[in-house]
């Protein structure tokens, strides 16, 4: 049986002045997959993700989430529709407690028992013991876990992770990979990542962007063997 499509983007375009950051991209996400988005710096990864989650307005093209047209939906409404975005630069609330941070995510989806579900969401990322701490006092690795925990606590249909392993130690990366694996197939994960070991290990499919266009899409094996991708990365 063919996988159901969660997200369909067609001819997505975003130019900044003369720069074609995203230039007519068609992009599909299958329900329940882990999909990695890779490409050289400036390839348009963050802009593409910004278009999907609504942080960057679409100039032309369309985006459908589970069949519903969300092209013109503002970012906060897309979160409610099921797209969660975790920031590349850790964006927690440093002056609030860890519990308040996670509760903001939990109450956003209209949880019935806020206190219990917040603790459960913290437990999922192993931070329940630090609930009363100020989030800004957490170590960097724990802050990234909290950020991921907030994304998971929204229970989105699509979780977008923007360079989640940046700055993490190897042991922390292993814990992170386990969390992402645990999120599917309930959620679909879109991952922007520079660490190729993480990408090759986690992703079911990979899309390679270059100069705002899709260079290739396929399984890790196919991407590794793709001549055009090798040329883009190695210079050809």
């Amino acid at each position, binding site marked *: 049986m063919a996988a159901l499509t969660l997200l369909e983007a067609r001819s997505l375009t975003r130019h900044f002045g003369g720069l074609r950051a995203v230039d007519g991209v068609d992009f599909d996400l299958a329900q329940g997959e882990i999909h990695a988005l890779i490409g050289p710096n400036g390839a348009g990864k963050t802009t593409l993700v910004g278009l999907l989650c609504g942080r960057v307005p679409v100039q032309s093209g369309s985006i459908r989430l589970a069949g519903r047209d969300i092209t013109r939906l503002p970012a*906060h409404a897309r979160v409610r529709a099921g797209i969660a975005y975790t920031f590349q630069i850790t964006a927690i609330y440093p002056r609030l407690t860890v519990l308040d941070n996670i509760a903001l*995510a939990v109450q956003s989806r209209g949880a019935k028992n806020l206190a219990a579900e917040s603790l459960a969401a913290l437990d999922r990322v192993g931070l329940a013991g630090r609930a009363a701490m100020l989030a800004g006092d957490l170590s960097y690795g724990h802050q990234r876990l909290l950020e991921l925990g907030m994304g998971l606590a929204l229970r989105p249909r699509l979780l977008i992770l923007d360079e989640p392993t940046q700055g993490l130690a190897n042991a922390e990366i292993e814990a992170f990979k386990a969390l992402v694996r645990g999120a599917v197939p309930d959620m679909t994960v879109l991952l922007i990542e520079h660490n190729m070991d993480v990408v090759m290990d986690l992703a079911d499919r990979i899309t390679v962007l270059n100069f705002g266009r899709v260079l290739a899409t396929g399984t890790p094996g196919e991407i590794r063997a793709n001549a055009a991708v090798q040329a883009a990365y190695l210079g050809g």
Partner: protein
Amino acid sequence: MNGGAAKIWALHLGVLAALLAAQLVLPAYHAGNLARIMVLAVYAMGFNIAFGYTGLLSLGHALFFGAGLYGMGMPVALAGWGAGAGLVAGIAAGGGLALAVGLLALRRAGVSFMIVTLMFAQAGYLTILYYTPYTRGEEGIVIDRAARVLMGLDLSQDATRYCAALALFAAALLVNLALVRSPFGRVMVAMRENEERSRMLGYDPFRVKLAALVLSGLYAGASGAAYGLLFGYVGAGFASIQYSILPLLYVLLGGAGTVLGPFLGAALMFYLIDLSSGVTTAHLLVVGAALLVLVLFAPKGILGTLRDRGLKWLP
């Protein structure tokens, strides 16, 4: 967590009980001052909902306070409305104007919000002066004793006035406390702390800020209407820039983003002005010096500093 809740209720109910007892102990002059302070503290609490919790710095709150005064005073003085209807009209005027200003000013963030609210407040002040035949402008409207009767209580009597001020203050304080401890209160703080992050958690910044501003306007309107009823005077001076700055000073002094800070700040500032103006005509210099000390040594205000120094549970 329950221990914290018990402490919080004990503190706030204790403050209310102390204020109830104070009128029996205090000389008439100070009781009168305290009644005034409690009404002004309601205004400052409203300001704090927008500024201290949601991060909206308005320089035009006198518009909402003045709306409360005139929204109550004009129907009572010109159309012979009762005090109760006047109070409701004043509260509605404060909230309604806050809604209108918010719909326009919240489209812009940061500095422009300050300037736009300042401009609206000046426009409101000038409007009051322009319609002097109805508003009596600078001279103001004196509310007749006969009109200052609410549910059979004569608000011009000292003891009744004190109790009415305390009742309003208590209601405002408890609603404020419940608000900031509610999920919506958490979202207000989230907006202040990181708007972009909050948006990406599914909260519409415009709607959250608009709701906070309308609540703030309702508080200011209630305070203004009560001020006019309790002290019998409605004047354009209450809508001037001075009354936009006062709640900011109260809140900064007492502690922005604390429930009791506005009251503490209002009381201290009131007596600072009262005492220093007895000593020198340059009493604003004393106020300025006090603010400098505050900014240098306790920029989070008195209660904000106490919260940092160990009273973490302080809401």
